[in-house]
């Protein structure tokens, strides 16, 4: 129920039943005593306010009525005396009120009153649940942001790809043993289609390189985060579903040293400026020269520990200069991809591996189990 603010009209004050004739000093003394005893009991702010209204209320306050009844009707000869007594009483009441106000303040905020409100501040705070970004998404976004700083836009492509985009245009010719390295999940019923039209689940994000180049003449700078699939049995470090972040940079005059500098910058941005990179020759059909990149072990700072197999280095990603054969496929739709004039590099990294390192995850399967206890750690 709404509590109405008490105002002057509601002050329930008994009018003094006195005539001017028999007013003497004792009447004023009685009133003063009444005021004093009333004021003495005042402790709360509310009571003080009621006291104020009772005595000093502008319309119905006792002093107001007093002045109307006694002062105005007093015989002329007594007016001066009654007036003095009235003023004296008013001063007393006002003084009492000031005291009561001050006292009520002190009472409400007294140490004792506050002590009664003491809280155990060591009790846990009330927590509203916060949702977490998935660690894989978080890692991908982090990589996307790092490369955005170097001018890379995001490129995406379908998860179901054709053999052409996933393999052939990436320089894995039909029947080539390099295809064996990527066990592929295929869509049913593809046997009667031509090899390059056969549908499969992309085994890497590299096909988006070709899709982008077909759409866009050089220069190109894209970073491709995405989900990929392989026909691999699941274990602690393998999953048939995983994620990659791929990058592609094509322009006039792009060099192997640019590739090195770009990835060195990105790894420092991702793992901290003290991280070192080193590059090893490797083999990927779609890059030439190809390289594997190692970073100095982030767990032991390169001293050698169990995590880096005591080598001080951790292998993290593959990269290389775009193979002219790949440019030749792109040039079928965009003639500006002429390997004699432009050059480029590409790189790809496994997001799960980076996330496992960064967050200390030991089983890759945790990323896909939706376990609340695992996910809430990333909130």
């Amino acid at each position, binding site marked *: 129920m709404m509590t109405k603010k008490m105002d002057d009209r509601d002050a329930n004050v008994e009018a003094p039943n006195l005539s001017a004739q028999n007013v003497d000093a004792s009447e004023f003394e009685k009133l003063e005593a009444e005021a004093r005893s009333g004021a003495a009991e005042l402790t709360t702010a509310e009571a003080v306010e009621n006291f104020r209204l009772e005595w000093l209320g502008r319309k119905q306050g006792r002093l107001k009525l007093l002045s109307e009844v006694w002062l105005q009707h007093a015989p002329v000869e007594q007016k001066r005396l009654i007036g003095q007594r009235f003023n004296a009483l008013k001063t007393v009441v006002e003084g009492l009120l000031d005291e009561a106000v001050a006292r009520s303040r002190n009472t409400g905020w007294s140490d004792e009153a506050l002590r009664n409100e003491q809280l155990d501040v060591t009790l846990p705070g009330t927590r509203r649940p916060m949702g977490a970004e998935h660690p894989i998404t978080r890692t991908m976004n982090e990589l996307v942001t790092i490369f955005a700083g170097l001018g890379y836009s995001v490129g995406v492509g379908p998860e179901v790809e054709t053999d052409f985009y996933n393999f052939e245009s990436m320089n894995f010719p039909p029947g080539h043993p390099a295809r064996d390295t990527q066990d592929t999940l295929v*869509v049913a019923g593809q046997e009667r289609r031509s090899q390059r039209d056969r549908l499969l689940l992309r085994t890497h994000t590299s096909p988006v390189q070709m899709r982008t180049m077909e759409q866009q003449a050089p220069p190109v700078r894209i970073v491709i985060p995405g989900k990929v699939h392989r026909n691999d049995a699941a274990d602690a470090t393998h999953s048939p579903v995983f994620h990659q972040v791929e990058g592609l940079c094509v322009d006039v005059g792009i060099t192997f040293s640019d590739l090195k500098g770009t990835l060195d910058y990105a790894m420092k941005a991702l793992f901290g400026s003290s991280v070192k990179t080193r590059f090893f020759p490797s083999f990927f059909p779609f890059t030439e020269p190809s390289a594997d990149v190692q970073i100095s072990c982030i767990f032991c700072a390169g001293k050698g520990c169990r995590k880096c197999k005591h080598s001080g280095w951790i292998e993290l990603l593959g990269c290389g200069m775009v193979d002219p054969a790949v440019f030749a496929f792109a040039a079928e739709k965009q003639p500006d991809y002429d390997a004699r004039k432009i050059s480029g590099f590409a790189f790809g990294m496994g997001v799960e591996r980076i996330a496992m390192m960064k967050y200390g995850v030991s089983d890759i399967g945790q990323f896909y189990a939706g376990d609340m206890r695992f996910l809430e750690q990333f909130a």
Partner: protein
Amino acid sequence: MKILTIWLRTLLPQLTVSDAQLGEDLTLRGIAVEGIQDLGAGNGSLFEMDITTNRVDAMNHHGVAREVATIYGLPLPTISVQMPTVRPSGVPFPVSIEADDACGRFTARVLRDVRIAPTGEVRGPMSEFAARMFTLLEQKPISNAVDASNFAWLAMGHPTHTFDLDRITGGIVVRRARKGESLKTLDGVERMLDSEDLIVADAEKPLALAGVMGGWETMITPATTHVLVEAAWFDPIAVRRTARRHGLHTDASHRFERGADFNAAPLASEIVSAMLLENGGSVDGEMIDVRVATLEKRTASREPIMLALSEVHRLLGKTIEPEGISATTIEPVLRGLGCELRRQPSSANSAQWQVTLPSWRLDVEREIDLIEEVARVYGYNRFANTLPSFAGSVKVRSEAEVEAAVSVKLRAAGLHQAIGSTFCSMEEARLFEPQPEMAVALGNPLSAEAGMLRPSLMPSMLAMVAGNLHRDVADVRLFEMGTVFGGSTDRVEERTALALGLAGSDATEGVFAQRRELNFFDLKGMVEQVVECFAARSFYFDQFAPGEKLTPEWLHPWRAARLTVDGMAAGWLGELHPRLAAERKLKKRVLIAEIYLHRVQGVPLRKPKSREISRYQPVRRDFSLLMPRHVNWAALNSALTGLNIAEMTEWCAREVLTAGAGIPGESYALLLGATFQATDRTLREDELQEFAARIVAAVEKLGGRLRAESGNGLQ
């Protein structure tokens, strides 16, 4: 693959660096040494190698020795074999290549009166050396015939095969198998041959799967006296097809599939023959060597290619050392690897070479391949780290903005983002895809339970929610944004969808916090907040009677709603059907929603817009109403909207009670809270009373009535 440093040092007598240094130097050149094992005094080390599949030429001791020689600029002596004198043969052994598209070279050498014995019992420099190397490699010796082939393989990486000559009728024919032919291979398996299989046959029958595995019948046994030594060159694709068809992967097929050295056959044959003959016997006639010119030209006698120093610089960029890569860096590297270089007339800075390629490096065929060799041997880490200049802008995908906006909303509501399996079972696909023929099957699924591409996010969301509940995680709040698949196996369509999965309480944690069980309206509120990310003109939720067969089977028919956004069906939400919950042994109510994000994505994201906030005091009035059951909130809401009271700035249902004192059947009590506020004045009591009267009139028009004007709730 394993490499012995002691063997490398016999091939490279001038090699002085330590084994550890050697391992690191090789690794940095792409001939990766994964592990180094010290074999004890005088035995050197065992290198565990990890060599990329394109470098089959380096998967043997001589191949690695060539890399070592190139790195350190050492001479690499050729392997020379001391062959016994040849006894001239009256009739050369007949060999013919019928399949001249697939077999480029076939050499055959006839050895007479050999003695098959364990290698360890044979006296002779090669046999003794081989025996020692086998011990260090922990390779089990078998017999001198098999071991000779293995020794040649380990020494120089060319596959060979030995036949029991007495089991061969007539001569050798390399051909495709004929329909109905079969062959029992060395692994004891009787194989039906396909007309595409490349085989080594005699006049009557198949003897071996060419380049893959020998035959049982012509196998060398202790009784063998006459031997035919085969060293050949087979085409990669032909061998790969045969091996795949028979599910075989052997050392020989591995090498041939990746390109063997056309010119290596005679040396391989010599090594095998010489080692076998150390235990007696003689060579019968010269080695028969049949070659196919077209294949020889494609491998051993390729046309030279050009290499320009300017291209090296254009592609590789800056080096740390200022002198960089010059002609004098390039020439010894490529010569060391077996290329022949002819410098073309040109100035020093624009040097060019005509390069003849080695027969063992079929992976090297273009200028870029030579540039890679230069970079590799020079050392990748001697290149500088540079950043290319950039003068463009970064484009942001609109889908990424949508995904970010939705994700932030849901995370703020306390939901964790999850990533579920891409696959589901046929049964799940049928349940969650209203048109089962639109679900796409995999040709080679990981398992029967993962045979389909998920047509909906529901199978994985339910699996994740159930996984939590089964692990006694009481409160589940998950969402997934991901791809779902439809269409047909000819044309697969991908769509982005959003799934929400909730169970248990709101999970507010604290001493003075009250936990509350989540219900349908928590889920609906989240869906509403997601939809409000978009500047949709309208959206609403509706329900269908079970008879209409519109509500998905997986939802509780009376606790399910369809979401419609701008006239498009945009998803379903509700409680999991109790039957499905029971099937999954879920005791808690599970709330799930699937939003067809791809449909909503076309609607622009809502941009925040500020409005004037009134300076005048708002007044709140509650109306305790009694409404007929058939009049739902949406009907009341639209009637209130229809009043067009500009000063009624907000209204909502504060409480709903469907049973209790003073609530007759077929009706329900509803506490309506309304807020009135004008932008230009304080509202007067008479105005408020007029608004109240209009509201009550609207309620009465719907068949409802006022229970009490205001109060502390419904009870």
